[in-house]
């Protein structure tokens, strides 16, 4: 009898120890599965990001520690403040236009009969699918100073020639236009998905209460889509703020550095000018805005997770 009790106790203890070792084994396997990801993130993202901060405190030849010397040098240069201004102007204007165009086009697509929507959506997403470097070449050719196909149309409807990328103000307009062209299909797709999740009963109830189309959009669709609108805009703000391809190919920062954004100027200083520390200092200015946007996105994503 006593033996039997002891037996039971022993086996229970054994089972508990077995369970614990199984959990340990499980978490070890889990860690092993995630190890390649951890290595990639640590070696190729986290380490370089921190190394950039160290690099920014070195002199041009990277032999001497200069503290905030690079930043002091930047703050004294007019070009730097121009780049700050243009980066902010570029990102904010482009994101606003992308969001507005995406919102409007999503509503038009949502309005038409369901069986035609796939075709229209497919055509409207094409700018997002083409590699930006390739489509910017087409824009460069459309803006060509002597053979601009836009100027040909303008001449035929009796409007004067536009200097497109030749004039600082028009060049700023051009880089924003191309960015809006590339990015608004993404907004359209996101907003269309959000629009589909707005229950039709809400529209019917609003219609019975006598709401017109504008009131339906303003008081029904907009509040229901708020979360997606915010997340998409913040995502796009990060990508637009860090944009490189479009400015690099279309204007290369010119005329007279008027269209440089942080990324292109950092490339010009760091790789072409052979001053890696200065380039790193410039690119680090992207950090604050990226961090702020990231925190906001994370909060939104979490909130969304709780709702679901």
């Amino acid at each position, binding site marked *: 009898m006593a033996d039997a009790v002891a037996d039971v106790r022993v086996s229970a203890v054994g089972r508990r120890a077995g369970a614990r070792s199984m959990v340990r084994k*499980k978490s070890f*396997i*889990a860690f092993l*599965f*995630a190890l*390649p*990801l951890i290595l990639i*993130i640590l070696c*190729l993202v986290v*380490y*370089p*990001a921190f*190394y*950039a901060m160290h*690099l920014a405190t070195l002199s041009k030849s990277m032999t001497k520690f200069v503290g905030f010397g690079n930043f002091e040098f930047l703050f004294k240069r007019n070009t730097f403040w121009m780049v700050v201004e243009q980066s902010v102007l570029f990102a904010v204007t482009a994101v606003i236009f992308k969001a507005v165009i995406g919102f*409007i*086009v999503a509503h*038009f697509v949502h309005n*038409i009969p*369901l069986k035609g*929507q*796939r075709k229209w959506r497919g055509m409207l*997403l*094409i700018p997002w699918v*083409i*590699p*930006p470097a*390739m*489509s910017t*070449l*087409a824009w460069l*050719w*459309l803006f060509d100073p002597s053979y601009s*196909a836009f100027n*040909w149309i303008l001449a035929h409807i009796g409007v004067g020639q536009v200097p497109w990328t030749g004039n600082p103000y028009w060049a700023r307009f051009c880089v924003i236009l191309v960015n809006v*062209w590339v990015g608004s299909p*993404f907004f359209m*797709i*996101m907003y269309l*998905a959000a629009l*589909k*999740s707005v229950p*039709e009963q809400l529209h019917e109830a609003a219609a019975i209460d006598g709401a017109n189309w504008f009131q339906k959009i303003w008081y029904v669709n907009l509040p229901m889509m708020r979360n*997606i609108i915010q*997340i998409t805009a913040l*995502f796009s703000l*990060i990508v637009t703020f*860090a*944009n490189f*391809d479009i400015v690099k190919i279309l204007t290369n920062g010119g005329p007279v550095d008027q269209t440089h954004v942080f990324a292109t100027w*950092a*490339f010009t200083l760091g*790789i072409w000018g052979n001053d*890696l520390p200065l380039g790193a200092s410039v*690119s*680090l200015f*992207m950090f604050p805005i*990226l961090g702020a946007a990231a925190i906001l996105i*994370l909060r939104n994503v*979490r909130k969304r997770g709780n709702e679901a």
Partner: protein
Amino acid sequence: MTSASAPIDSRAAAPVRYGSIARGNRRALRWSYFFLVLFVIFFLMPPIYMLITSLKTSAEIGAVTNPWWVYNPTLENYTTLLSQKTFLTFFRNSAIVSVLVVSVTMVVSILAAFSLARMQFWGSAALATGVFLTYLIPDTLLFIPLFKIFAWVHDQTGIELINHWWVLIFLYPTLTVPFCTWIMIGYFSSIPKELDEAALIDGASYLQILLRVFIPVALPGIIAATIFAFTVSWANFLYPLAFTTSEDQLVLPVGIVTTLIKGDVYNWGQIMTGALLGAAPPLIIYAFLMDYYIAGLTAGATKG
């Protein structure tokens, strides 16, 4: 998946309405089509202009004629470009890099996503958030420190990383892996827990659960992530521009921009042809797998 892939539009099945509402709807529909046509013209104009220019001879491009029309269509630009050894090298480099990056990305992110979505370990929740944050760090912030790190590796080991196309195989996963892991976590989390518990009771190992249960069930998500990884690695412009310079080491986007634009002489017919050929692979994939493409796009931001 999001509601976009399974849309239920009650208006499509709505009963016939009479009077002014029906008339109002018809008018709204006409205006919708009108504006959609305008937007499609705006969105498709550059690629169509690429095609128009690519079919022209240099003489016609330089002539003072209607730039929006081809008077003497010719495939000359395509034949010259496709018989050029350098252009084919760009294409080969791009293809090899993209295929390898996609394979590496998918293996790494599927394993990691399975581990983060189903098998917790110490710090796994923090890591999932970390993956999302790394996705937000752009390549424009990383290329300068990486440049210096590569130089340091050369000094230490004698391995030259700069100006070799294969270095891109190590660089592109920084752009693709975080996002693919992120959306795969979303897809894996949506699989019912009962499924893997049943497999576990039947004595399956974790690798078997992943291969036999999770991958088949989450196949649409895997296709979406694969398309994303391919598009990103085909289109990236900054890394190859910063890290490769010799003509035989370039990938397609950089090759077209740097070798076809020589000084002030722009051969626009060839540039547009090259750009169109460079845009073709993502466009072809998109044409055949549009629904997966869109599902991946919307999953990235809506899965939390």
